[in-house]
């Protein structure tokens, strides 16, 4: 299991990163943003646990997968 990303980005680090990104640092706004970002951070940690070694990195720029185009004529 990946380490809990919320532990990796505690609130203080989140606030600092938000300021760096030019996001409004009003505490009330950041209170609302933190849970939204936390959900995404958990998904981000989980996505890195998927083994993608069978994917050629160049394939990752194709919306329609080349495997599904075999036999297709355009």
């Amino acid at each position: 299991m990946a380490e809990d990303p919320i532990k990796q980005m505690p609130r203080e680090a989140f606030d600092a990163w938000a300021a760096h990104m030019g996001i409004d640092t009003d505490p009330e706004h950041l209170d609302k943003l933190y849970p939204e970002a936390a959900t995404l951070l958990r998904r981000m940690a989980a996505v890195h646990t998927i083994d993608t070694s069978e994917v050629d990195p160049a394939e990752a720029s194709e919306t329609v997968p080349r495997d599904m185009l075999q036999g297709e004529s355009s």
Partner: protein
Amino acid sequence: MTIAANEIANLTLAALAERIAKRELSPVEVTQAYLDRIAQADPAIGAFITLTGDDALERAKRAEREIATDGPKGPLHGIPFATKDIFYTKGVRTTSGSRLEADFVPTRDARAVEVLQDAGAHSIGKAHTVEYAFDPTGRNEHYPTPHNPWRHGHYTGGSSSGSGAAVAAGMVPLALGSDTGGSIRIPSSFCGITGLKPTFGLVSRAGVTPLSWTLDTAGPMAHDALDVALAMNVLVGHDPADAGSVRRAPTDYTRGIEGGVVGLRIGVPEDYITQLVDPEVKAAFDVAVAKLAELGASVEQVSIPELAWGEFFSIVITAEAAALHRDQLRDRPEEFDQRVRLRLEAGSFIPAPTYLKAQQVRALFGKRLAKVYERFDLLAMPTTVMAAPQHDVPTVTVAGHEVNTRDTAIRHTRIFNQNGLPAISAPCGFSSLGLPIGLMLVGKAFADPLVLRATHAYQQATDWHTRRPGA
């Protein structure tokens, strides 16, 4: 033969085209009938943000003259349509559902609007959208959230909220929508109409406000599969102005639509569906699949564990949307719909390696789906796990689980945007509250004609798509 105005508004596009061709109806009569329906129904529903009735009538008069002289140039000649308010319309305000774009008046039409107009159709108005098309419920903080024509106070689905409501309520026979994670299919399901997210790249997105450039797909919404096919015949075409546009041999999407489903192999990811689905939705879906089997399809359960990756794909859309709106978020954050703002700002926390990892997961998902499509022609699922929820309810209870409304609405649809697959939603029943339920059929890339053929076969054997709210 005289056709009453209220009957005109309930006709399909194909039926209208036939009557226009036979001179039983004129484009002006048709357009006026829809304007009358809008005047009567839209104050309660709120499908349109801007009406262009005068321009539509002028274009209808021109179509009438052209048809009188040379006959119709195709089935869309003289047909009105609604345009989702993220498609540019020359000289007509295009808000993208945002206060930030409240005064934006494009100097050109989106390519999709242009080709419909070239075919003789005319836009009757701009249909509401959620802000920057970034919400699946239909909710909009600054402009009125449309009401579901089947039940006031319930969502239409989004982001093509007004498009779904306008077709369902008989205010237009055709609407343009866009689908990045389900934005054509969810409102089609919630509103009881038929909407196709075409294969990525078939329909130009030039002149459509982007949300996520690797996922955004434009497409048609109508009453049934035949009408969708007629619209696809006009909408599909290579456009160098859209970097994602593909060049394909011309296809008649109505050709073979009567071919039925005998011998088609349909896979049902039962184990994924049953993890979270409203019992009424599941029951209607099961009956629909049984009907496809009765019509001759071979229906089998299939396990696709990778469907559980759906939530990872929010990384791609959120990162791309955050990148697109970065300057506005920095300079004018207060003008956003505040819930949309939070999601966009959260996207600022996605590092580039994570975005690229999510893209690799997409590609891997495509490889796994390609294997599935060696065994099946189509996949079938309920379009959404629930019927349209009430407005402003942040959570809903589905099969005893309290879940986030937004994430749950998009659960079945967004997974198929990842690889650009063609996916349709067609009505297949109603909940006990009288809200529509949708059947989603998904084909492999460029199997749009097959998706339409199977849907048409289903609709020839059922009448869900013929029902109208308030009838």
